[in-house]
């Protein structure tokens, strides 16, 4: 999928652990792990809003568009 989740990078910058963030935004550790490892197919605006609020960041800090096809062509 060309959308990449940079949650681990932002979490590292904020020095927050996965379980701590999961508890603060009110989703399970398993679901947050799916999001972090890029296995999620979609993200709700409410989840994105909660993550941005807790990590004090913008959606663009967490989500990144990376075109795999153009990467492989170049």
């Amino acid at each position, binding site marked *: 999928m060309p959308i990449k989740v940079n949650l681990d990078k932002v979490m590292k910058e904020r020095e927050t652990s996965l379980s701590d963030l999961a508890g603060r935004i009110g989703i399970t550790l398993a679901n947050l792990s799916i999001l972090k490892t890029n296995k999620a*197919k*979609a993200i709700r605006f409410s989840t994105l809003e909660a993550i941005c609020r807790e990590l004090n960041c913008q959606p663009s800090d967490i989500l990144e568009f990376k075109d795999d096809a153009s990467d492989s062509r170049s």
Partner: protein
Amino acid sequence: MNSSHRFSNFLKWSFKILKWVIVCVGAMVLLIFLTANPDLENSDSDISLEVGKFLLQLDESSYAIHTRFEKSNDVVIEELQGSVKIKDVRAADQFYRSLKGPLIFIFATAVALGFYTLHLLHQLFACISAGESFSDKSIRCIRNIGVLTIAATLSGGFMIGYIDWIQSSWLKENLILEGIQVIGKPSQQGTIGLRINDTIRFQFDILGLFVGFMFFAIGEAFRQGKQIQEENQLTI
């Protein structure tokens, strides 16, 4: 446990029982097929078929009593007397013995297909009652049932047509009409003969094909359902 869950559980067990019933019945009939050995050659009774019965039974198949009268079409045949006999009983005996092998093969294949279809239905309802309706296993079951239904319809139509053709071809050469009398109203002079259709006719059951394609459509709907379920599960 809700009512739909209970119903799918009931169907699951019904198909489990049914598949073993079909195995038992199939095995019994196969045993009868294998052990039965009709001795037409040494039989005392004449092999004769009443013309009247021919008219009634074989009207819609490949046999038909063919009548031709000199005048009009409004002759009402009240009664046909006489008999249709096989020329050589020994040849008939040999002919039906030669048909025994293919018939046993066709029957055994039909029983095996029936058993496998019930097995697939049992697996499908096991998946549904376990709450895994949109799984790879259930999709595979539905698609396989569709393939089996279409294959059974096509091959069954071909087999029936082929056996019918073999039998008709043989009967055409070996049947004789004896002492035929036509009692008609009004009384007419005419001729009567036995017409046997000896061309291969495939008897495809359109309903079987329809059911097969319906299973394919349901399988496709389940595949799409699985995609939606996966997407829903992976939405954080």
